């Protein structure tokens, strides 16, 4: 998926969504649909708590789609089912309703209060705030006759006219958080107070003006317009020097300036956030953090611990084997470790010394007396105990402390608990607590000695507590939880257990005469059948095959050297070959020579794979002060059924983030992201984040051919739709940039991957 390419644009959209959002022109009567939508918003005159909310279809005489009440913050949320089209929201007060004043005091709500708003119900979430100016908007949309049905066209025009007057998008702008909206309503209250009247009267005056088609004629509305100007409210109407505003003179074919301003704000937020994710900003970008984190893990966990732990493993071997004294020299990765272990009389405490580069590293391993290796059930004992405390041979003075217990429940299952493990170096500190592992053995009959034995079937890590510092840079604190599920394809392929021997075989097709003299085949090939699979052996030396063979678990002897073994017998059996197609020189017959083999083993874990990994906690880069707190979850809904035994297996992977992102010089961002790569090669992205008073949502869908669409929306009515073609470039011609259903600009190409938005008023800005 060409997400990175679009990341620089990251502003793309969906034609389908545009249709869904109404657009312009035409009447739109209500339709039934099978989906449900949530209509939500705030009712603000004063804040109306416990107000009565009714949602109507297209007209106040129309069907009531939903009834609800506002909460104590004035917010409401109403579910409407099976309807798309214009809706009207009416908020009134009853005896239980209250006005919540700015200072928090509660007064009874004026029972004459009737506030209205309207919007188009076309999506799942329909923001519809209810305020005095949305009430005025509905008057405009219905030409003063509130019982008249509204259409998408009349509504869109009314929205534009109100926005032209007040400078805010009336319906979607949050009247509680948006400073301009708050000032407008506060000014209404001030005018009401100055004139010793009520807000209801102010609203009536506004509505009277709206019916007449001229705003500012009434003494109250005239004062209101003047006060809004004095309070620095900017709008095309207020910026003009006219004392009255004729609604008929407002050109609704041109979006008012605030629509463009709203889009620019969204684009600005994308630019700031995308640059902080991409490597444009060299200081503290997220991709730099990820890169550094990988590097730190590699350095701290992989590179700098392998040799130390390898050396330690010899010490543990001594303890497992209950050897009172053990010493030796180990060569690993170019290092030489000279180790010496001495045990107490009970063989429960082992003092070790590992000499490396002329320096001694000492420690003690304590075990329960019955301590054994956990790899086989026959060795595993009840309630085993192991504790390690000491220093390790390392360049950064590592010490280790670990305490673990193992418990065999019965002959089939066990629990292993790493209670606490601390590894500390000059630059690293890793503490892991409570690694819970549950495992299971399976029982089989050993063909070599005909005895019943058991081997490890699976292990499952469940919960891990992390408290660590990597490379003096990253601090990680939190819990890691894993859910497991058994994948059927792995389990079916290796039904007998978790360890699988893989034999790499090199069969050679040759021709032999009766004296066993060899000759080269003139052509043809051989079909060799094994385990239900046909392998075609060509007349060349390049036949390499991987075949899983489940026997001979206990040794690594070459199976072809066991001339009485099952596999030898199998490959030497002529009935497993079809040699009729091989052309040999006269006097020679086709023959298969098994000349080479190599053995590998896989731990299949009996098909158990994690289907959900959840990290809950924080990761902080102490060098850049970038910190992420929250939850990161990776899950796969279909990993149980996808054939993971095949190369390029492609289960659906969903990654979700719900994090609070703190970066120097950036406002704290609450980031919610959901990314899904499906097994049909499609991908979906859903990101939302807060920006000032707004929440920006970015939705992207990619098809298997890498074409797709990206939609960016905010709470204020901005919608940017950009389809993407198969090479990852935007489809400029069909892109659409809208504000409240009115087109405000077009995405255009300025060459050299420079997509720009060309706004209707001539302004232009690049996305990057």
């Amino acid at each position: 998926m060409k997400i990175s390419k679009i990341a620089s644009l990251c502003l793309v959209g969906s034609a389908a969504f545009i249709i869904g959002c109404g657009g312009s022109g035409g009447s739109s009567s209500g339709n039934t649909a099978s989906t449900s939508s949530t209509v939500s918003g705030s009712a603000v005159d004063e804040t109306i708590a416990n107000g009565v909310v009714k949602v109507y279809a297209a007209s106040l005489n129309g069907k009531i789609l939903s009834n609800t009440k506002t909460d104590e913050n004035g917010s409401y949320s109403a579910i409407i089912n099976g309807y798309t089209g214009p809706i009207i929201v009416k908020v009134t007060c009853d005896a239980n309703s209250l006005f919540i004043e700015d200072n928090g005091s509660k007064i009874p709500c004026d029972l004459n209060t009737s506030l209205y708003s309207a919007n188009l119900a076309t999506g799942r979430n329909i923001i519809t705030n209810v305020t005095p100016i949305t009430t005025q908007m509905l008057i405009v949309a219905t030409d003063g006759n509130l019982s008249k049905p509204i259409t998408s066209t009349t509504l869109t025009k009314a929205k534009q006219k109100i926005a032209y007057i007040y400078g805010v998008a009336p319906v979607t702008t949050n009247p509680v958080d948006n400073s301009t909206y708050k000032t407008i309503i506060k000014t209404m209250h001030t005018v009401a107070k100055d004139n010793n009247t009520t807000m209801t009267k102010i609203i009536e005056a506004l509505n009277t003006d709206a019916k007449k088609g001229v705003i500012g004629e009434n003494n109250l509305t005239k004062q209101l317009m003047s006060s809004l100007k004095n309070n620095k409210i900017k709008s095309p109407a207020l910026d003009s020097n006219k004392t009255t505003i004729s609604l008929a003179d407002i050109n609704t074919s041109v979006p008012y300036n605030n629509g463009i301003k709203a889009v620019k704000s969204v684009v600005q937020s994308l630019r700031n956030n995308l640059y902080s994710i991409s490597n444009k900003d060299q200081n503290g970008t997220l991709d730099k953090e990820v890169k550094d984190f990988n590097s730190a893990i590699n350095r701290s966990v992989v590179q700098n611990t392998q040799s130390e732990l390898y050396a330690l493993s010899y010490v543990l071997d001594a303890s497992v084997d209950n050897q009172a004294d053990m010493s030796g020299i180990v060569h690993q990765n170019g290092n030489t470790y000279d180790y010496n272990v001495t045990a107490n009389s009970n063989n429960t405490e082992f003092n070790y010394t590992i000499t490396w580069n002329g320096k001694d590293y000492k420690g003690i391993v304590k075990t329960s007396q019955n301590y054994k290796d956990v790899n086989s059930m026959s060795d595993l004992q009840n309630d085993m105990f192991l504790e390690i405390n000491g220093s390790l041979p390392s360049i950064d003075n590592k010490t280790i402390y670990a305490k673990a217990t193992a418990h065999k429940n019965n002959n089939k299952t066990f629990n292993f608990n790493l209670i606490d493990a601390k590894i500390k170096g000059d630059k690293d500190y890793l503490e892991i607590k409570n690694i819970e592992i549950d495992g299971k053995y399976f029982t089989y009959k050993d063909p070599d000695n005909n005895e019943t034995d058991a081997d490890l079937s699976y292990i499952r890590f469940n919960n891990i507590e992390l408290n660590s510092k990597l490379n003096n840079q990253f601090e990680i604190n939190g819990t890691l939880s894993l859910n497991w599920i058994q994948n059927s394809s792995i389990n079916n392929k290796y039904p007998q257990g978790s360890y699988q021997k893989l034999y790499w075989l090199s069969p050679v097709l040759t021709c032999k005469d009766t004296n066993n003299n060899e000759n080269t085949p003139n052509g043809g090939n051989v079909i060799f059948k094994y385990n239900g699979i046909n392998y075609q052996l060509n007349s060349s030396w390049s036949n390499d095959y991987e075949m899983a063979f489940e026997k001979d678990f206990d040794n690594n002897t070459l199976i072809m050297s066991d001339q009485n073994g099952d596999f030898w017998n199998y490959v030497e059996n002529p009935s497993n070959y079809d040699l009729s197609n091989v052309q040999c020189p006269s006097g020679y017959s086709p023959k298969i020579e098994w000349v080479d083999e190599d053995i590998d083993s896989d731990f299949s874990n009996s098909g158990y794979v994690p289907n959900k990994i959840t990290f809950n906690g924080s990761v902080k880069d102490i060098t850049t002060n970038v910190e992420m707190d929250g939850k990161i979850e990776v899950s796969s809904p279909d990993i149980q059924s996808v054939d993971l035994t095949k190369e390029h297996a492609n289960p659906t992977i969903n990654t979700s983030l719900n994090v609070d992102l703190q970066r120097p010089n950036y406002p704290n961002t609450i980031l919610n992201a959901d990314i899904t790569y499906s097994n049909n090669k499609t991908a979906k992205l859903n990101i939302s984040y807060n920006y000032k008073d707004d929440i920006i949502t970015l939705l992207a869908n990619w098809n298997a051919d890498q074409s797709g669409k990206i939609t960016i929306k905010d709470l204020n009515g901005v919608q940017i739709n950009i389809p993407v073609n198969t090479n990852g470039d935007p489809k400029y011609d069909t892109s659409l940039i809208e504000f409240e259903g009115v087109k405000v600009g077009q995405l255009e190409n300025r060459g050299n991957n420079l997509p720009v938005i060309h706004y209707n008023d001539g302004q232009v800005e690049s996305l990057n």
Partner: protein
Amino acid sequence: MKRLFFFPLLFFSFLHALVFFNPYNKKNFSVNLNSAFDFGPVYEIFSNKWTDFYNKSGKNIGYLNYRSNIGIYHNNFYFGIFQRGDYFLKTNHQTANFVYQMLNNHIEKNKYYNHLFIYLKGFRSRGFNISYLFHYHNFLGFVSSSIFNVLFVEDGSVNGKGYYLNNSYDYNLHADYYYSKNYLYQIHVTKPKGYGYTTHIGFIYKLENFSAIFLINDLISKIYIKNVPYSNVYLNSNNKHIINGYIHYSPMFYGIEKYKNYQSRYNPKYLLQLKYKNYFLGNQRWFNINFPYMGMEIKAFTLKYGFRFKNINVNFQKKYFFIDLGTNKVNLKKASFLKFNIGMFFKF
């Protein structure tokens, strides 16, 4: 009116760096094409294969003049139709060098280009001309007036700074630009059309061994074009700012792009030439740039030398035909000055 054409050689010898309209050249048909650049070969620049950079300190200019005329003479009048293109480009050495290096992908590292500047103005037009020619004793003159359609316009400037470090450009540019075709960046626009008028005057004084020519093309002119694509944009490679303590990324490209009505004029061209016997000395001037020259006539040939571009011109005139060629390099592909003029006179 034959007396008007007593002095045929006078009327083409002035052809030097720039293309002038002069009805006294008594050609019914003529094609003129002149182009020069201080900073590189004409051929390479126009064919987008600019591989040779010519160093010239300070102000650098380039221009393209072309004009074709078809007309007839009747009594004291000349009636003709024409098509002309007059494009002038002004820049400085560092800008020319920066553009050249950028096009050839070998920008000088860690060098600060503190004054990037390009000014371009030009029009292509097609129209009708009427000229009145007169003479009084040894004094000849003409007054000419043209109306025309404007087919192509370029008028704008780019200013800014640039820096090249670690294989990436760092620049801040501002463009203020009217155009039919945007040469700065890719944009699809509707080509505008306009109209205008212009006037030319010329005076020639002739004695037995001495003559003087003074011409002003486009003395008074006006151009009106509706809905010209206009860009007033900023291009910034480094768009990171701190605003209120927070990192803010302004757009790398922003400004205004719209269609605007446009008025302008042709910048006048001046010519003064003095001739004694077969030798002459002259100067042309356009956009405050002088193009001095000197030359001599040898029978049907005229040889000229231009000082600014160090170019040689050869002109051949035979009865009703003339051809005029000029270059400053033998290898024409490497010449930074090229000129081709041809004209014919028909007797009706």
